[in-house]
């Protein structure tokens, strides 16, 4: 293994640049270094003006998503050695506006998220909690996978439909809605339907499936969406039946 590797890093400084440019840096190549360690080396030793987000560096805060050699990835969990001898291209996540260098704006997702009511809806407001709602392990299993989303936005970066149709709710938001729909304690599924079963909701998805391949947490948003399509379609069919038979 060589002892250095070249990172080609996208730079965009809105005050001076009209469009992003690439800048090359040579960083040490170590077995245990993630791409994020390379970026931090640049920031600390070579060029303090490079901007990117990170915090937990253990794949759980969801802030360090970038495009590494064309693929959306968490840079704290993507290792330089796997790209040796390089160079490695590091760019901001696709499909989002670039605020600066490797930092993208995710306001759009943050605005969409509350629309799917990602919280437990109870019709019978239980007041002060003194005992738990019972939930058996198989019931927990029903939605657990969808509760693993860290909002890293890799799936949005991977989804071509989101690129073309910015109004699309998108994979993570729908998976989170399903997370609550399938929770045995929740009673809000019919409320969420007004948002999910729309042209901007599940019907926009053409099952490209890239969201699921990109997801670092095994959430399988494509599956969540597909499953919801069947739910929504059968509900619609049933709504055509005369009352009482629904």
């Amino acid at each position, binding site marked *: 293994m060589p002892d250095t590797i070249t990172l080609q890093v996208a730079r965009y400084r809105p005050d001076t640049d009209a469009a992003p440019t690439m800048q090359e840096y040579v960083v040490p190549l170590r077995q245990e270094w993630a791409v994020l360690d390379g970026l931090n080396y640049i920031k600390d030793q070579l060029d303090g003006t490079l901007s990117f987000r990170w915090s937990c560096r253990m794949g759980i805060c969801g802030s360090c998503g970038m495009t590494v050699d064309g693929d959306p990835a968490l840079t704290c969990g993507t290792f330089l050695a796997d790209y040796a001898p390089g160079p490695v291209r590091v760019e901001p996540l696709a499909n989002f506006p670039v605020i600066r260098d490797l930092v993208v704006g995710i306001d759009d997702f943050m605005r969409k998220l509350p*629309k799917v009511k990602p919280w437990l809806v109870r019709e019978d407001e239980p007041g002060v909690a003194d005992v738990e709602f019972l939930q058996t392990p198989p019931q927990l299993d029903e939605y657990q996978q969808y509760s693993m989303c860290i909002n890293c936005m890799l799936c949005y970066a991977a989804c*071509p*439909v989101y690129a*073309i*149709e910015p*109004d699309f709710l998108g994979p993570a938001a729908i998976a989170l809605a399903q997370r609550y729909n399938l929770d045995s304690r929740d009673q809000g599924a019919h409320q969420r*339907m*007004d*948002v999910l*079963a*729309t*042209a*901007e909701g599940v*019907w926009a998805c*053409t099952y490209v499936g890239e969201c699921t391949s990109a997801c670092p947490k095994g959430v399988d948003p494509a599956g969540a969406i597909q499953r919801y*399509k069947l739910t*929504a*379609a059968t*509900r*619609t*069919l049933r*709504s055509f039946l005369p009352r009482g038979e629904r």
Partner: protein
Amino acid sequence: MARRSSSEAIGWLLFSAGGMVSALLVPVLLLLFGVVFPLGLLAPPEHAHLSAVLRHPFIRIALFVLCMLSLLHWAHRFRYTLHDGLQLKQLNKLINLLCYGGVVAGSSWAAFVLFG
């Protein structure tokens, strides 16, 4: 955000039904009539036999359903392909007309051939 869309739901159901029947039946039919018989790998069925099969009312109905659902399947996918793949959003109305018009035309022709 738009309201709940039931037309999308129905469209998707028909698309799925079409996808399912075409996936089940089309490969074998195409393999036989499109490749195996023309290449002479197997002798094509006698006219009398085929004619008898095709005149069976159950087969007529099955083929009609296959044709119509397959076309609906095509229309749904093709519409999205034009829309997303080539980003012809502005032409949305035209695309829909083309696709679902195609379904109506194709199904009518099928009805004419099979039952006419």
